[in-house]
């Protein structure tokens, strides 16, 4: 069986990659993709802990399913917002979208 620390280490690297991308990239669609990466790494952790600690009560798996649901809703609304922004300007640079800055 796979050691649990391997799974936690994998998801730590994945979360670090997503965090770096979300903080350093400027394209809003790329930031959305990096957020999906981070949500996936959390899901991997939940699945692993549910398997190793309570395999008879799959509460972690249920929580992962809810995270998938929220991630799908977030991606849909986020892409719709980006499409609306891209209609008025050609790029979706998060540094230049400052409509609420005042």
């Amino acid at each position: 069986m796979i050691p649990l620390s391997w799974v936690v280490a994998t998801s730590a690297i994945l979360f670090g990659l997503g965090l770096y991308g979300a903080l350093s990239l400027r394209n809003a669609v790329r930031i959305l993709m990096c957020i999906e990466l981070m949500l996936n790494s959390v899901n991997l952790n939940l699945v692993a802990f549910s398997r190793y600690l309570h395999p008879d009560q799959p509460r972690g798996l249920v929580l992962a399913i809810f995270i998938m649901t929220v991630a799908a809703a977030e991606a849909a609304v986020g892409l719709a917002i980006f499409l609306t922004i891209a209609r008025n300007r050609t790029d979706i640079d998060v540094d230049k979208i400052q409509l609420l800055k005042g």
Partner: protein
Amino acid sequence: MNAVQIIYALLAVVTLACAYGVVVAPKLMHSALWLGATFVGMAALYVLLDADFLAAAQILIYVGAITTMILFGIMLSDIRDLRAPGEGPWWRRFARLVLSPRRGLLPLLAALGFAVVLWGIAWQAPWPASAPPATSDVTSSIGRVLFTEYALPFELASVLLLVALVGAVVLAMREGVDNR
């Protein structure tokens, strides 16, 4: 190391390489395709962790819906990708990226610090040495828990999806289309 561990290590390396591709791919389209590959790799990791239903849901929702939606969103709109100025040899571009504090150094430090802390926890913490034997019917117990204990969050999730659907349609609708 037995066979399952070797397979897990290979799949994890491939998945992390695909995730790296998401972050560094120069074209937005390639980045989205790497994202789909990452999701497939995650589904394979779920299979190794005895979560078959999660793997199927991952393929259906993430690969089938989210990646496709992002690809269509890129292709059907005029979202233009932001290209970094690509002059100079690669090490000079790399140095410039790393040395720019807001876009290079600080995110790198934050992500590295977070990952290092998590790695320390992962290797130090007293995890259970071996997993208990797998229960045979994970999927049916997921269904039982989902419809008894988590029935209210389940129904709320359906409301959330409906609201997100309507909201996405309203946001993406062009102005003036509804006046006809």
